[in-house]
């Protein structure tokens, strides 16, 4: 039913993406700011409290002076839901045919946003280490959905916390106990490197490539929003408690606040496997979304 289709210009997509990149890098999401504030009230150590105070001051200065929250403005990661009755046009108002490229449109948005917003370009060739100069290519996960709209979720993923993330294939018999053991060991070993307080995204199930994708997507849920799967809520709370008992603390210098939240996403897996991905997110949990 072609007449049900809606047309959107690639330029509108690029503009929206550019604005999203800039906005997300200047403003800490409310749920994260609130979690940091609550953690500050619970923290007793002078060192840990001092660091949490600095993070609160940092968020204020960033917003007031239009400075990025962190100098690592990340690799740009997108989760995109493209309505199957939406066509992208190269020209304005649908001119130029409906053969616009969603990947090119998003990358163009990244290019503009990172230039206009004075964000750092942190993407390079893996071997020569030559910087691409415009923070592209972005990592884009595209999903086709019913409807005529386009939902774009953006995440600025810093290298420090991403480097501390891991994937493992557990034996099914290891179960929840094995999962907890692996996560706790990972967080303890990561120590101060991923800029604690961290948020831990867990992808459980799927397969070797799906588990990390689940873990990353899990990180997009707000900290004050309960897990849609009731059976996972207790597990998240249990693991959060155990992680904070490690005493890693803000910046790895000791204290009660190691983790602000554990976010789990699951998928069915092979009878022989228990895939587990631990995606660590730093306190500078920058993300945002736009619906077009």
């Amino acid at each position, binding site marked *: 039913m072609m007449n049900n289709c809606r047309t959107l210009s690639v330029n509108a997509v690029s503009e929206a993406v550019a604005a999203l990149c800039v906005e997300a890098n200047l403003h800490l999401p409310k749920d994260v700011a609130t979690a940091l504030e609550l953690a500050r009230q619970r923290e007793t150590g002078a060192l840990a409290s001092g660091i949490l105070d*600095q993070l609160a001051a940092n968020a204020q200065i960033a917003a007031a002076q239009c400075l*990025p929250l962190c100098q690592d*403005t990340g690799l740009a990661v997108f989760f995109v839901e493209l309505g199957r009755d939406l066509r992208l046009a190269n020209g304005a108002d649908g001119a130029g045919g409906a053969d616009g490229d969603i990947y090119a449109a998003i990358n163009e948005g990244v290019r503009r946003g990172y230039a206009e917003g004075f964000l*750092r370009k942190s993407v390079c060739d893996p071997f020569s280490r030559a*910087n691409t100069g415009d923070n592209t290519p972005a990592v884009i996960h595209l999903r086709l959905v019913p409807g005529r709209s386009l939902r774009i979720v953006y995440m600025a993923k810093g290298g420090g916390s991403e480097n501390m993330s891991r994937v493992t294939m557990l034996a099914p018999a290891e179960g929840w106990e094995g999962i907890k053991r692996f996560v706790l060991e990972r967080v303890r070993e990561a120590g*101060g490197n991923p*800029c604690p307080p961290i948020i831990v995204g867990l992808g459980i199930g799927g397969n070797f490539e799906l588990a990390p994708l689940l873990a990353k997507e899990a990180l997009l849920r707000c900290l004050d929003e309960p897990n849609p799967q009731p059976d996972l809520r207790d597990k998240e709370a249990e693991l959060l408690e155990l992680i904070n008992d490690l005493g890693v603390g803000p910046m*790895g*210098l000791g204290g009660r606040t190691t983790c602000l939240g554990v976010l789990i996403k699951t998928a069915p897996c092979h009878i022989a496997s228990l895939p587990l991905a631990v995606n660590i997110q730093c306190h500078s949990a920058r993300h945002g979304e736009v619906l077009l």
Partner: protein
Amino acid sequence: MKKRLTAPFLSADDLSALRDLRTGDSVLLSGVIYTARDAAHQRLLGLLAKGEALPFDLRGAAIYYCGPTPAPPGRPVGSIGPTTSYRMDSFAPALYERGLAASIGKGPRGAAVKEALCQSGGVYFAATGGAAALLASCVKEAKLIAFPDLGPEAVYELKVEDFPLLVATDAQGGDLY
């Protein structure tokens, strides 16, 4: 109590003040420091290997492991928080041996760096990771001095005022992590 220090550390008094620092001390650092991270360190060590001069004097210097965001109009630099220090562990001992007084970053250092600190009387400071806008407000001037092709990884000379730091690893083998 915060101690006030000024970089570079050249006089006998400066150097003994460095030696007197203990892990956990809060420091407000002013003066001149240099930025350098992964790629810049590779080049600095390359210059040393060839016996060539470095773009800045290492003696008494402080190196800040960071790659700032571009400077918006009217500001010397953009946001400027520390990067993870262990990635510079393989380069740091050679620099401390040649007079580097302090490095600034985030996260723990390896055994070779701790050993180099004890030998040289140097120090490793931690800055708060992700407090990049706050730290930017302590930078008064910035000058690109080497490797402009490295973009955010180029070497900048920064003039800082009351830059908030913690002594993470001292010259006595003390380690905060």
